[in-house]
Structure formats: C-alpha cells, structure tokens
C-alpha cells in the first residue's frame, strides 16, 4: 500500500467501509455475504478489529444488531448483499424504525451502471426502505464512503434515534481502486440539528403544574430507556412521591420493585395503572408517544388531565393526544432541569391530596393485582415468568417475541433495571426473540439472557439455533408451548365465538430433540413441579444454550385487557369479570 504522504492512507472503497466501522468503534458486524458485497467481505477478512457474525437469515442479523442497540444504547451494524439480502433485512429495519432504535444497515447494490436495468439481484433498496428508515443514502463516489458512514452513525444515534440504510454499489468497493481515507471526527449538517435541552419557560410551567397536582401520574416510555434517563426519572419521581407507570417499551426505566411503581399501562396494563391514568388530573408523559395500545379510545382518554409531554420528536407531541405543556428536548437534561428546579424552589406537592390519592391507588392495587388461578394441575404461563423473574432476581436481559408470552413477560417479570427488557413493541413481530437474545448474549457474555417465546414465534427464526452453536451463545429459551397462537386464539375466544381459524399449531417438532440436534441442551417441562428444578438446571449451565419447552395451559388469557373502544379504565379483568 502506498501513501500520498505520511498522513493520508490510500484505501479501496471496501477497505474504507471496514476501516470506518473500526474507527467508529464497532466491534461486531452482523450479516450474510453475497455477490454485491464480496469486496467488502474480503476487506473484512483481512483485518481483525471488526468481527463478523454470520447469521442464517438476514432478518436475524438486523434483530441481533437492534437488540445490541437496545441493550447498549449504541447503533448496531448490519451488512447484507443486494436484492434478497436487502429485502430479507426489511422486517428488521421496520422493527428498529417503529421502536426508534439506532441501527446502520449497509446493503450491497449492483454496479452503478447496471442500476435501473433489472440486473441480477437488483432491488431499489432506497425506495423499499424509504418509509421505514430515519434516513437512507447511496454511495456515488468511493471517496465519500468515510463521510457517508460517519453521517449514517450521526443520524442514527442523535435526536430521535432510528435506522439508517447506506446502499453501496459494488463498483464503489473495487479492491484495486484506492482513494485517500480520512474519517471525520465530527459532523455538522445544515439541514439536521436536533434540539437537546428543553425550553426553560416550558420546563418551569411543567414544574408548576406538577406541584399543583392533586392526582398526578408519571407515564414514561421507551424514550427514557434509549435516552438513558432512568436515573433522572427515578430522582424526580422519588422527590415528588408520585406514582409511576411504564409503557411496554419503558419497562425497567423505573424499578418494578419500588412501591411507587404501579405497573405497565395500556391494553394489557395493570388495573391500578389504567385506573390511575384515567382519574389523574396531571399526567407527566416522558419519552412516550400515546400509542393506540396505551390510550384505547383517544376521544375518551383521561378526561380530567392536564398533559405535560416531554419528547425529543416534535411530531410525537400532540399527534394523537393534545399536550397542554409540550417540551421538546432530550428527556435526560429536561428531567434533570426539573429536579434542579424542584430543589431550588423547595416547594412540596400537596401532601394531603397526595395521601388520599395514594390511598385510592392502593385500593385499586388490591382489586386485581395480577391475580391468576393458583395450584392448577396444568402449568400457568404467568407462574413460569414469575419463577424466571425470581431465579434471575429481575436482573436478566429478557427478550421476547409477540403474543401472549410477551404480555405475560411484561406483566410478571420484575424489571429493576433499564435496557433489560428487549421486545418489538411498535411493529410487533414474531421471530424477534431468539436473534435479539443472541445479539445481547454476544455483547454481554456474562449476563443471563432469556428469550421468552412461544411455539409459534420461535419457529419464525428457529434456524438461528445454528448460529448460536457457531458462536457459543448460551441463551436460555423459555418456550411457553400451548399448541396455539395464543393471542390470536384469545381474540377468537373473545370476539369470534372460539372459532380457531388457523390459530392451532399442528405438527410441532420435538423441541428437545431439535435443540439437541444442534448440540444444545433441551429440557421438557410438562408438570408444575418440574418447573423450578428445570430452571435451576438451565441457569446453572452458564455457557450452554438451553431450550426449555414448557407446556402451559392453552386456555389461559391475558388480563387485564382494555374493552375495545372504551376509556383507559374500562377493562376485562378475567373471563367473567369486567369493570
């Protein structure tokens, strides 16, 4: 390799891609090779800083990168080839987009001169990904690669995070064509400059409104997790002694073991969280977006409440629910400013009103309290999650797929730390759990990583058991096997007179043998008394993947559940009770 001078190195486009990732501090790249990215793979092979993880399907690569980002706060990186490689990554990109997860996806593309000619493995990835990315770009000149990669990371990780796709035509990476390499340290764009600190006047207004509240609630979402503001949120809540509810995406932002925590809210939220929301006079929404799974019918949503809404994305404010006091900014500095103002003011909330509010909340807490049938001959899925929570002390990383098992995990696992609950909240995709658990385990090899799944979901990316073997990923799979697509069945029970149209899972494999065939450990649990010993054994096998195929009650439903079209406080509490 020759240099023009001592400072500037000459690198091929392919080598620049890998070097830029290394300079960005990327340790793992998740991907799958193919024609359009072979130059890049060759450059990857010739260095050791950036390690590549070979998945069995590109979708899994995106979920691994995504889960790493959810656990660490840093962007995950994916490399796939053009055409099918890129389209297989689409579901994972959409998942990250819906949950505002920073991710950089490098997609191969056919040679520039072939673009638009329906070449072999050509797909307009910029067009396909446009509605599901924060931004996407294409490389037009090899020498732009370092700048474009820096730009991709900058956009993915700043403001409201999200996935960025960089499309790289093969001729941009020719090994023999070398260009000066210089990785920019910082970047400034005239058209993109997200707000950080909130408006001081608005923050003041919000603090005053909070202090005047008689029936307050703090409603926090995924923004607190990705914004790394759990500490500030906890400080504010403790200072005020106000009840806290977390969204599905926000679990762990406030410790579940704390008495001020009243559970998750929304469609399958706790009775007390939904009641407290509905009757509140002041709602402090932090990094949450009033999603339809939270609000139920927006026209009937929290009729008495003054709404304070902190969010980094102005478009999230007053989108579905009008905010009375909007604050645009990063949740971390805004919450810190609120805590500082409270300290400065030395003002206290209305103690008397708060006492009676807490009495009311405690009364609600005793109404349902996550009860389910005990001492049944068939294992209850809720009991499985409670046991996992107990054994891992609420400190494991828990990933999930989508359906009943996801809701049981959200309701019954006591998340005491942020970034530990990793699920697809927005897109709601089956097949996320296993690759997500793999992404976390690879980066946090000493942590307990649990994938809570079902026999339907796990089969959507079960091929990744092979990747787990290759990289020695000792995740624990909790397969809540009820022989049905549980959530579909629940809706069919409730709305379609139990006509189970295609919700029955027939012809299941023997999951124990399947796991064993990949060299993993499989354990079947079919009776309640087998559960604890099986879990103890599984978690003692630190470095091994253990597939626990746990047979649970197929008749179980997830409760509470919002009454469709109703207000926050209208819920089914069991198969026979409703509010």
């Amino acid at each position: 390799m020759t240099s023009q001078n001592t400072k500037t190195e000459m690198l091929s486009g392919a080598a620049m891609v890998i070097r830029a990732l290394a300079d960005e501090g990327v340790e793992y790249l998740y991907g799958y090779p193919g024609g359009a990215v072979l130059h890049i793979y060759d450059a990857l092979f010739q260095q050791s800083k950036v390690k590549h993880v070979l998945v069995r399907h590109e979708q899994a690569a995106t979920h691994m990168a995504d889960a790493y980002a959810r656990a660490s706060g840093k962007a995950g990186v994916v490399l796939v080839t053009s055409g099918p490689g890129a389209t297989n990554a689409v579901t994972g990109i959409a998942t990250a987009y819906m949950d505002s997860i920073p991710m950089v996806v490098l997609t191969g593309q056919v040679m520039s001169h072939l673009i638009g000619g329906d070449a072999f493995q050509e797909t307009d990835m910029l067009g396909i990904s446009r509605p599901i990315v924060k931004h996407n770009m294409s490389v037009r000149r090899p020498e732009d690669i370092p700048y474009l990669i820096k730009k991709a990371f900058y956009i993915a990780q700043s403001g409201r995070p999200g996935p960025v796709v960089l499309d790289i035509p093969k001729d941009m990476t020719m090994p023999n064509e070398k260009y000066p390499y210089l990785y920019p340290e910082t970047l400034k764009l005239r058209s993109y400059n997200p707000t950080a600190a909130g408006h001081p006047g608005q923050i003041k207004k919000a603090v005053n409104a909070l202090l005047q509240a008689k029936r307050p609630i703090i409603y926090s979402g995924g923004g607190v997790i990705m914004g790394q503001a759990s500490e500030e949120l906890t400080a504010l809540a403790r200072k005020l002694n106000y009840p806290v509810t977390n969204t599905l995406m926000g679990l762990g932002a406030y410790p579940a073991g704390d008495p001020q925590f009243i559970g998750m809210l929304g469609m399958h939220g706790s009775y007390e969280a939904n009641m407290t929301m509905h009757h509140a006079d002041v709602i402090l929404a932090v990094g949450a977006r009033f999603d339809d799974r939270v609000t139920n019918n927006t026209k009937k949503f929290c009729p008495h409440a003054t709404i304070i809404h902190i969010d980094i994305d102005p478009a999230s404010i007053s989108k579905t629910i009008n905010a009375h006091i909007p604050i645009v900014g990063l949740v971390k500095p805004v919450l810190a400013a609120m805590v500082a103002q409270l300290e400065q003011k030395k003002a206290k909330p209305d103690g008397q009103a708060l006492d009676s509010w807490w009495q009311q909340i405690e009364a609600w807490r005793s109404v349902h309290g996550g009860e389910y049938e005990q001492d049944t001959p068939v294992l209850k899925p809720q009991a499985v999650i409670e046991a996992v929570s107990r054994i891992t002390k609420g400190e494991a990383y828990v990933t999930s797929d989508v359906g009943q098992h996801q809701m049981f995990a959200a309701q019954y696992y006591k998340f005491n730390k942020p970034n530990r609950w990793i699920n697809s909240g927005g897109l709601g995709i089956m097949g996320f759990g296993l690759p997500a658990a793999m992404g976390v385990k690879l980066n946090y090899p000493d942590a307990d990583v649990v994938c809570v799944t079902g026999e339907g979901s796990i089969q959507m990316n079960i091929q990744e058991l092979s990747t787990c073997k290759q990289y020695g990923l000792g995740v624990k799979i909790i397969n809540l096997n009820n022989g049905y697509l549980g959530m579909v069945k629940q809706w069919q029970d409730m709305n379609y007179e139990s006509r189970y149209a295609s919700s029955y899972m027939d012809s299941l494999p023997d999951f124990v043998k399947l796991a064993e065939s990949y060299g993993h450990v499989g354990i079947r649990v079919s009776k309640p008394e087998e559960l604890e010993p099986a879990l103890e054994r599984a978690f003692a096998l630190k470095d091994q993947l253990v597939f626990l195929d746990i047979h649970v009650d197929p008749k179980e439903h997830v409760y509470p559940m919002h009454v469709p079209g109703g207000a926050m406080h209208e819920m089914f509490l069991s198969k026979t009770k409703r509010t």
Partner: protein
Amino acid sequence: MRHIISVLLENESGSLARVVGLFAQRGYNIDSLTVAPTDDATMSRLTLVTHGNDQVIEQITKHLHKLIEVVKLQDLSESAHVERELMLIKVKATSNEQRDEVKRCADIFRGQIIDVTAKTFTIQVVGTSDKLDAFIEALKGSAIIEVARSGVSGISRGEKTLTL
C-alpha cells in the same frame, strides 16, 4: 383549510421522493407541487399546496422538518404572501368569431397568445389559482383541447424570507 408550504430542500437525489413519499405514507393531500433549484445550486425550493385542519397541517410541517434533507420551511398562508401559477391552455380556434372571442377573453385575463395555428390558439395565463380556474370557466364555451398548469409558487411579502 388550504395551505401553501414552501420548503428549502437539499438538492440531492431522492430528496423529492422523500417529501412525496411522506404525504402518501401518512395520507396527507397534495393539491399541487412545484420544485426547482434556487440561486444556490445546492438547494431546491419546493412549493406545496395542501389542505387539512390545523392539527393535520401541524403534523405535516413537523414531519417535513423531520426529513433530514429539509433545510427550512415556511407556511406561506400564515402571513401576507404573493402566489402565482402559470397555465398554458390550448383551445380550438377555427372560425373568425371563435378566434375573436378567445382573444378578447385572453385580454381580459391578461393572457398572452404564445402559439397560433390555423385551428388552435395556445394561451399563457399567470395568476392565482382562482384566476386560472376562472379563465378555464370563461373558455368553457370554446373547445378546450389541453391544459398544463405549473402548480403554485409563492413568496412572502416584505421583510419575511425563507433563506439560509
């Protein structure tokens, strides 16, 4: 309500598709759209006419702002502004009577006849969209062959600007 939104956009490939895609994705209306480079070759100026209630317009402007390539934008209809649209209209003009009638009408609307054949006139009219609508209405008696409208372009009055 009708709004005219002017946007300064990075002159990059795909940036227009992003704006149009946003409207399609989120179910917003585009009544007209015009785009061209400005005096600064790195930037395009796009003028978009849309309609919706205040909440929808607020979401439209917020989402436009979110697009990485959008440098600045302005809702022209929020304050005093000038708006113009250009129309080229081809009409059948065979008899003398017909030709005189079309000519008179064009004069009233301060249109210019920019192409003439034995059978047709092509007229250029500039004005607000309402004026162009009125001209079409006025020509309804004669046979209109073809209409090409540019879509609205606009600029705010006085000191207010949309520049870097």
